[in-house]
């Protein structure tokens, strides 16, 4: 009877709703602990998902679907029996009960019992129906959240190249809309459709026993409803499409009008455009009127169809020369109503099914993309077990250096390889710089170093000192383009991208990239975060934020400027205190003064002599700090060495430096850098 909501209903009558009120609904927790078939995680079911998402879900939900089907059938059967019993009352009186005769009161007694039975059956049917709907809700929730989670995990493991084919908005849309369509199909249509067939057959059979052949006339008229409602639904979709077009037109006019409000006033065009908007609104309104007329007709027809069915039965009486009695007539009416209820949602089922098909295909299109592990498999690198064991047992990993051996990166269908035979070493615990003109392949080299791109030829080896609990240090060397290697790399690296990543969370969650969820940060957490922000030249900015460290960032919170975002990225890297830092041109949006300070703090300060820094850059002001410089051009390594040798005249580096200096001069005479 769902009475466990009573306390909540009482509370919320007078108080505003808050989360802790909801937490008292203990039955929800049962959902989380319920065993179902989704525990294995996306990679276990990936082959099935790639084949057909619908079938995967169907297999996982088959037990629930079966239960829902049974409950629904029992519910329909109860309603039929209740209708029949009600008819029986009328029959009893018709056949035996003349008022005033002896047997009338006995019949009356029987009828009362029957009436009570009807009441009980209907209430039972209602309760069953409600239980079934609740299960439907659970299915929708489970399927949609699971698909979203699977998609999320999958995307986080997707090959970088494959992911580039999908705009972020599309992936989010698939998770929101297409997953929901698939879920709704299984919740509603998948069960109700077979139930529809079974119940129509049952009811018509029952009708036949009561009204004889007239039942077939009823069936005929009932079936006629199918093409009629399909026609109306097709018409409705067309009208709706046109409505959406007109509505979009009006909205794009309004958006432009609002965005260019100032400009409009400068030129005195405001009224003119306002008139265009009014015209567009009028056109949309007229289309909407058509839709209202369509909807009213279609809905009016479908809710009145049971009357036509009943009339069909009556016509059947005439045609087959049957006697009509009140009980038969009302049986016809009752059963027609139930039939009508069953068939009404038919167009909706059809629509849900087609939407689910489309959604399933879009999901499969994403799942088919390769994941990183599959990319690695094509090259066959591996970390031997003993090395892996030592890595796992290590207390600390230090002095990371890279060894790139003849690394080639080729894109399929592109003639020139993006990286050609790059061989170099990045020394441990020192600053290395990667320079070169735009498009030389600097970012690509970094991506390869981080395991995001797998080289078509050649290998990338990582060397490090693994220090165990006793302080013994072992030098290990292993390739990174394999699962274990990548996992080890990710434990020791930090990355500052060109376009900063800001999570929609507070500052104190963004810096360590950790979500609080329901927990608490340990007491000295904030102190470390503050120190990292100071070093990144961001602490004054954070102090001016409305809630300081607790300020929410991102779309629903405060929007940081480009320079502030980059400094946040740096703070993240500083906070993580790891032995490897990879920087992809992180100072592009920062002005020269701040840049000097940052370079001093980082390269000269907290990262000096303990951290391996690999820095791809355009800003050449501080190259002299680098121990090793690598010059790329057109995907090839044209020069490498230290500052002394490369800054001599005649080297590639010096020619790049001198041409950039000229441009910088010109730029400084008409300044215009970042403004907060």
């Amino acid at each position, binding site marked *: 009877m769902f009475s466990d909501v009573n306390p909540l209903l009482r509370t919320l009558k007078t108080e505003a709703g808050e989360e802790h009120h909801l937490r008292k609904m203990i039955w*929800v927790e049962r959902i989380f602990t319920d065993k179902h078939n989704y525990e294995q995680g996306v990679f276990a079911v990936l082959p099935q998902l790639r084949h057909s998402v619908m079938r995967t879900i169907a297999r996982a939900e088959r037990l629930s679907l079966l239960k829902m089907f049974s409950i629904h059938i029992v519910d329909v059967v109860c309603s039929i029996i209740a209708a029949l019993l009600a008819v029986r009352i009328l029959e009893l009186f018709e056949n035996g009960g003349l008022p005033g005769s002896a047997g009338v009161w006995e019949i009356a007694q029987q*009828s009362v019992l029957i009436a009570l039975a009807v009441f009980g059956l209907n209430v039972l049917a209602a309760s069953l129906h*409600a239980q079934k709907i609740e299960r439907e809700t659970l299915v929708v929730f489970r399927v949609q959240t699971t698909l979203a989670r699977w998609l999320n995990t999958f995307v*986080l493991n997707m090959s970088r190249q494959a992911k580039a084919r999908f705009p972020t908005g599309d992936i*989010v849309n698939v998770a929101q809309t297409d997953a929901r369509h698939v879920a709704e199909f299984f919740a509603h249509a998948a069960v109700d459709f077979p139930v529809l067939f079974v119940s129509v057959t049952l009811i018509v059979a029952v009708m036949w026993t009561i009204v004889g052949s007239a039942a077939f006339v009823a069936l005929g008229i009932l079936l006629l409803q199918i093409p009629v409602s399909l026609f109306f639904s097709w018409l409705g979709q067309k009208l709706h499409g046109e409505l959406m077009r007109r509505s979009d037109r009006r*909205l794009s006019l309004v958006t432009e009008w609002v965005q260019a*409000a100032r400009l409009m006033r400068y030129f005195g065009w405001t009224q003119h455009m306002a008139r265009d908007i009014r015209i567009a609104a009028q056109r949309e309104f007229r289309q909407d009127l058509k839709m209202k007329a369509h*909807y009213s007709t279609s809905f009016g027809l479908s809710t009145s169809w049971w009357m036509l069915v009943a009339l069909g039965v009556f016509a059947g009486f005439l045609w087959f020369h049957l006697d009509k009695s009140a009980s038969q007539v009302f049986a016809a009416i009752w059963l027609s109503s139930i039939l009508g209820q069953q068939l009404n949602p038919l167009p909706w089922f059809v629509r849900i099914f087609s939407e689910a098909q489309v959604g399933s295909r879009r999901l499969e299109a994403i799942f088919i993309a390769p994941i990183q592990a599959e990319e690695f498999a094509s090259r066959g690198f591996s970390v031997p077990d003993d090395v892996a064991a030592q890595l796992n047992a290590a207390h600390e990993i230090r002095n990371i250096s890279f060894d790139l051996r003849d690394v080639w990166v080729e894109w399929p269908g592109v003639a020139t390889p993006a990286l050609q035979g790059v061989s170099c070493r990045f020394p441990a615990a020192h600053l290395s710089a990667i320079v070169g003109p735009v498009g030389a392949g600097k970012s690509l080299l970094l991506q390869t170093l981080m395991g995001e791109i797998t080289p078509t030829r050649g290998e990338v080896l990582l060397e490090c000192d693994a220090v165990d609990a006793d302080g013994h240090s072992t030098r290990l060397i292993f390739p990174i383009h394999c699962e274990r290697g990548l996992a080890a790399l990710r434990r020791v690296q930090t990355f500052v991208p060109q376009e900063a990543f800001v999570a929609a969370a507070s500052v104190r969650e963004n810096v360590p990239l950790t*979500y609080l969820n329901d927990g608490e940060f340990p007491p000295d957490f904030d102190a470390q975060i503050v120190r990292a922000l100071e070093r990144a030249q961001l602490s004054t900015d954070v102090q001016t934020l409305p809630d300081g460290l607790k300020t929410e960032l991102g779309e629903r919170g405060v929007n940081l400027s480009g320079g502030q975002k980059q400094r946040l990225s740096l703070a993240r890297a500083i906070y993580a205190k790891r032995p490897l830092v990879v920087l992809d041109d992180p100072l592009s949006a920062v002005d020269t003064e701040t840049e000097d300070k940052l370079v001093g703090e980082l390269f000269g300060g907290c990262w000096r002599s303990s951290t391996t820094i690999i820095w791809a850059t355009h800003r050449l002001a501080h190259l002299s700090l680098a121990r090793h410089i690598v010059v790329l051009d057109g995907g090839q390594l044209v020069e490498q060495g230290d500052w002394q040798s490369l800054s001599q005249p005649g080297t590639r580096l010096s020619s790049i430096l001198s041409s950039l200096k000229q441009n910088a001069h010109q730029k400084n005479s008409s300044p215009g850098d970042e403004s907060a």
Partner: protein
Amino acid sequence: MTGFVARESKATGRLGMSFYSRYLLSMRSIAWMGPVLLFLIVAENFFANGFRWLVSLWVEACGNHACTKGPWIEVPVREFFAEVSPQRSLFALLWFVLFAVVFRAFTWTVVTAFLARGGRSLHDEVVHNLSHVPVTFYDENPTGRIVRRFSGDYANLLVEIPNYVNDIFGCIAEIVWIFLLVAFQAPLACASCLPCALVYLRIQSDFRPASREVQRLAKILETPIWAVFTESVAGQQTIRAYGRSDEFQKRLQYLQNRYAYAFLTQNRMTRWLNVRLKMTSEMFGLIVTLFVIWSLATGRLGAGVAGFLMSLSIGLDGTMQWLTRSFSMIDSTMVSLERILEYRNLPREGLRQGGSLQQSTHLPESPETAQPAISGAEIRFHDLSARYREGLPVVLNNVQLTIPARSRVGIIGRTGAGKSTLFQALYRMLEVESGNISVNGSSLLLKELSEARSLFSIVPQEPHLFAGTLRHNLDRLGKHSEKRLWEALEAVRLAEHFRAQGEAGLDFEIIERGGNLSVGQRQLICFARALLMDAPIVLMDEPTASVDLETDAAIQMAVKHLFQGKTVIVIAHRLETVQDCDLVLVMSQGRLVAQGAPDSILPAWMSGVESGSMLA
């Protein structure tokens, strides 16, 4: 400018009855349409039960009873069925059903169309208000917030709310009909009507507040799920570089679980409601049935009418459920109406700022007669102080200056010094605190707004173009001939390019924000636009801010040679632009700190830039 954006006003959850009645009463012609629509709704809801009633009479006809027995209304109907052949009876019933369908479709269309029309006129009213609102309104309210009034909120007003109102009145009418019919046929059974209604109201009043609150929570808890999902997709590289994939997956699960509480509880509450409503209507049906049994046993009623009465409770619970659902839905969608109504009373710009100002600066009002086109005009700032709006600090501070007619004036200064703000003042987009602006001796602030603005044409900082044809972007109001348009394009050296585009010429389609043209080309089109306006005063705001070297040269040339004979004011970063001016102004923090010939001003400025004491 973070403090500038005003907070979105939060509508509270509960809207009183007075709000709903105001909504209904505000429709045009509600006075006479209202009763008509009510009548239609009441009539329309008769049909389903009317059919059953007619059938009950058809079944009995004059079977067990004399034709004249029973209520007076029924007598002619019974007689009709008794006299007429079975086929004709059936046809009569068929006509009844068809009429029912048509009437129902008609009523629903008329009611929803009427209410939607009210929404539509509100839309037009808001458009009208927004076209006269001060520009600072658009600075305070993000585009998304304003546009939402026109998208989701308007859709609610046009489609959803009329449907819900229709449903509510319809359901109430249906329930009333059922009770009426029972009262008519079986007065004693009607004793159960009142308790049934009371129980229903009680159930409903328990349900609605809680449902509203939980729905609100569900909405709040759902959004972060997609925010985190979007982030992990967008920030895939950073997240996995730091080895934080697990973290983000856990977060997603955590947020989904939080949402589960709201979503699933909401559903459970609806189940609670539906089961209890069903019980109430079944109880009602039971009582009616018991009465019917008694009537049948005592011979009060015939089997036909008995069957009819018993069938009344079919669908009663469905109607009750629908009614409650409609009430909940209308609660949450009425917020849209509130939001749109907020835009009904907006401030109006362009109020003539006269009175005390006029007295303090002794300027004549502008003569009412139309002035001949002035080529070049003298502008004077009389100790002007102004701010963007109430509560914000002053952005122009006692600006006193004279710009001679037909001169070229350059303005330089640091970012945020107040250069563009001068232009805003000329366009009357600031609130004047004290002082005045005059053009050729007559006060600008006292003129009618559109007249005042027509004195200026501007080349703004960002070359914004609209989706549409080239013609549309140059001359939206269609005031100029094609010949004039081509002349303007010639003057900015763009005619070649567009002639070469093929036949399209002036009908060349520009996509949203001018994406199919380079930044330089867009800037030149803006020049052409300003040229066409042929206003006596030309303003240019950093015309070469974001262009490549080639276009830069074209623009510099345009700046030097176009607009001969007009007063030209240029805000510039490029010192070459300003070198050829007659007068150079230096702004700093809203004040005019220096003015004079380029030779005297620029050297000092340059040295200031290099020493770092004056950074632009």
